[in-house]
């Protein structure tokens, strides 16, 4: 359980950028997994992939519920305000733990649109294969590749707008 909780919490944190929300969401994921364990079929993929699907669905539900994410959905004109929000939402020890680039990347991630964000997180942070991402997102492989590509480019643009220059 420790291994799964660590993985799920990391996915939630990279998606929301907030520890408290991530903890609540991780708890909800395990609760849903516990209640719907009977619906799991090994033929539909590994248990970890199934858990990731449950996590993704809960994250999307959470995104739709929260107004803050609706505001941050716009990528171009809300940058400084959102950055201040992120800084204000974190504890000082969290802020200290984040390196400069890591903090900027995390901030940029939370400004990606949810569909691009989840694709980038699953591919570049969770190191899932395209076929596994296809199962989690329930979209064709071409769409998965396209979202990952667009997500990376969008992330680079956001980082550039934040002042992070290519070395």
């Amino acid at each position, binding site marked *: *359980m*420790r291994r799964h*909780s*660590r993985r799920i*919490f*990391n996915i939630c*944190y*990279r998606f929301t950028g907030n*520890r408290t929300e*991530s*903890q609540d969401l*991780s*708890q909800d994921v*395990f*609760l849903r997994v*516990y209640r719907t364990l009977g619906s799991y079929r090994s033929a539909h993929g590994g248990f970890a992939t199934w858990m990731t699907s449950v996590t993704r669905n809960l994250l999307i539900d959470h995104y739709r519920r929260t107004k803050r994410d609706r505001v941050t959905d716009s990528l171009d004109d809300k940058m400084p305000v959102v950055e201040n929000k992120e800084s204000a939402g974190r504890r000082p020890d969290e802020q200290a733990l984040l*390196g400069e*680039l*890591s903090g*900027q*990347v*995390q901030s*940029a991630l939370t400004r990606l649109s949810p569909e691009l964000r989840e694709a*980038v997180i699953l591919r*570049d*942070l969770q190191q899932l294969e395209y076929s596994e991402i296809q199962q989690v997102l329930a979209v064709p492989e071409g769409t998965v*590749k396209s979202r*990952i*590509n667009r997500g*990376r*480019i969008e*992330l*680079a*643009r956001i*980082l*550039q707008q934040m002042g*992070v*220059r*290519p*070395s």
Partner: protein
Amino acid sequence: MNWTCEQTEARLSDYLDGLLQPVEQSAFNRHVNTCEKCAPLVAGVARALGGLYALEPVEVPAELEDAILTATLGAPSWRNLRRWLKGLQSPRFVYSMASVAATLVIILTASGFSLRKPKLADLAPATIFSKTNSKAHRFYAQSVKFVSDLRVVYEIQTRLSENEQNPGTREQPAPQNSPDKQPGRTDNTNPSAPKQQNRADEIGRSLRILAAQFPVLSGSSGERRMP
């Protein structure tokens, strides 16, 4: 091979993942090296990817695991009870309890404790000791009697076989203090067991009558049928 800016953007992930064909790779490189728009794009995406890969896994809050267990399995007290009950299902515990129960049943049975009409007084140590002592003595006496009976039967069989083999010596008394005396065989040297000798004589007589009436049961029936 011509390469456009749109192609660069569309195939950027393939380039970064090393999935381009050699021809495409060289065309991509030629275009990026000469295009002012695509060069910073590729460098920026590579930088973003480097930043993503450099992200360390976030430490999980210490209370998360407990919160998950509480949400799924209930409060800690209930979890402990469940864990304890689950431990009772282990084969080792079941075997141990079965052996303990069997030992208790044996001890209670030996002490004369009635499971149908249990009394608290029967569980007193003095009662258990006296009943167990009595039962043990009774068991010893029964065992001695059983062994004695076996000796009598063995003696009868021996005497019968001797009589059948040597009919002339049937009524001869056993030699006094014979050195090759069979174990358990009675003779006149043991005046302390007259009842046993009488009983052996009675059984011996009965067996001889039976052997005469039913020669088939006797081992020498084949010889008797001979004229």
